[in-house]
């Protein structure tokens, strides 16, 4: 069988020059979002369900929680940023936003970036991808943007589920207050997405990338936690991203911390792109 297809001038023009970086970036982001199209269910669902459970429980614990809190050690309350719990939003803040949601969502951000870069290299997909006229930096930028969108979706689902169930069960949380609490998780997670991008610029495999990024995540959390309890560790808290996380539900979003954490995440991702460009892609 012989099929002859002459090259038309239009076709020749079409492949002669690399497309603008934004075109490639759009392709990478769209593919990444398709790869994570079920994340609203697989991650947003469980986190939202847990948070919704807290909202649903609020009417039954509302009258006893203040008494229970009085028995908590002061250090513990300070460590977990627990103040007076007189509202359902403060209850959700203490139960979900101080530990579970930030750690889980930051881990998801790490996972998204790791899979797109180190995972693709490990599975030898990068050889196919990088045969197309796409810059390595675009792959990193795409993974970082996908992480940002994916975690925004998960946080939105968590917020909405909590609010809907809260309204349905009579605890009536404020959507705006819940939203600012979950939105505050976003820059923190983006910092760790950036850290994963940096590690992927250095390592060829997903295991060390995940280890570095999640190890730092847990390490920073512990430094911040222990720093609140132990005075000798307190000076180290400046190096922890959790030091700048605070409690947006109780205090509102700190725009400086929000922008700072996001910018550090972007800077780390840019450094990762530079490293990836400079090194070999392993087969």
């Amino acid at each position: 069988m012989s099929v002859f297809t002459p090259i038309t001038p239009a076709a020749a023009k079409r492949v002669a020059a690399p497309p603008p970086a934004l075109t490639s970036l759009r392709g990478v982001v769209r593919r990444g979002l398709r790869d994570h199209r079920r994340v609203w269910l697989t991650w947003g669902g469980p986190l939202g369900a847990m948070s919704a459970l807290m909202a649903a429980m609020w009417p039954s614990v509302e009258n006893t929680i203040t008494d229970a809190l009085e028995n908590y050690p002061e250090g513990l309350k300070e460590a977990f940023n627990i103040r007076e719990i007189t509202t359902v939003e403060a209850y959700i803040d203490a139960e979900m936003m101080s530990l579970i949601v930030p750690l889980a969502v930051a881990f998801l951000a790490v996972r998204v970036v790791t899979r797109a870069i180190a995972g693709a290299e490990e599975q030898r997909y990068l050889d196919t991808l990088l045969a197309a006229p796409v810059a390595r930096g675009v792959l990193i930028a795409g993974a970082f943007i996908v992480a940002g969108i994916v975690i925004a979706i998960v946080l939105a689902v968590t917020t909405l589920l909590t609010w809907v169930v809260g309204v349905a069960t009579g605890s009536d949380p404020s959507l705006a207050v819940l939203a600012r609490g979950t939105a505050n998780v976003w820059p923190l997670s983006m910092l760790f997405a950036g850290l994963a991008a940096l590690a992927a610029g250095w390592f060829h495999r997903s295991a060390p990338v995940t280890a570095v990024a999640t190890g730092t995540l847990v390490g920073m959390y512990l430094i911040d936690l222990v720093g609140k309890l132990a005075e000798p560790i307190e000076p180290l808290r400046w190096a922890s991203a959790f030091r700048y996380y605070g409690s947006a539900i109780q205090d509102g979003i700190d725009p400086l911390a929000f922008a700072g954490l996001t910018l550090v995440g972007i800077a780390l991702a840019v450094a990762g792109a530079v490293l990836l460009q400079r090194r070999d892609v392993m087969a």
Partner: protein
Amino acid sequence: MAIIETHALTKRYGHARGIEDVSMTVESGEVFGFLGPNGAGKTTTIRTLLDLLHPTSGAATIFGLDSRRESRAIRARLGNLPGDFAYDPRLTGRELVSFLAELRGMRDLGRAAELAERFHADLDRPLGQQSRGNRQKIGLVQCTFHDPELLVLDEPSSGLDPLMQEEFLAFVAEERDRGHTVFLSSHEHDEVQRVCDRVAIIRDGRLIAIESVEDVTSRSYRHVTIEFADPVDPDEFRRIPGVSDLRRTGRRLTFKADAGVDPVIKAAARHTVTELELSRPTLEEIFLTYYGGDEAR
């Protein structure tokens, strides 16, 4: 016009060998075979050309563009089938090609449908549910759908059934007829001999020969078989310079002659010859000579 040029291209992995001083030129419109056993440096050469690996020293140009600084512009004009092609097993071939088309700034899938039909590639099943041979067909489609000027193929017929190998070789020949250039890395001597214009042989990371397939096979030794009317003394032929591997079976002598056949013909003419056969060695036999036999497999 040279499409690929390398100048003392060297890639080392720490102290480990990759490739050393690889210098070659691939001309426009030729099918260039790159022959060597596993581990000889074929894939390292290709991955260095594609900027996946950065050379330790030396340089390469493709389409006259620097393979490092202008890699994106180069990749816009080539198609690459990596050795042991693999991609996300959840994706269908169509999804993969769509993604790559988007990365190339294309608004359609180019020749994908036509090529999928030709190679019997199923674009609608996830890659993870396809056999190795069928995945390889998707690999061929993804590297050719955009009609590139240069095809870089690393073990392209690996996993293909014989009928599809034939179709693939016909496709390569057509690409050459259309003025496209094909860089074909293989250890399948037969396909290289059948479709390539020139061949480079790489051994232990170094190029040891670059010649036209015709020259390689014509300049090399000849297999000689002579049948005589009466038995002859084999030593008469064994003494001829360049004759080796001589065997006698009844009235028949077989041997190799690598210093020309004229003295062989003159010696044979002293007897009554009933049959004479001269044949060129296959590329595989020549390759084995370069590699000293058992190393090549």
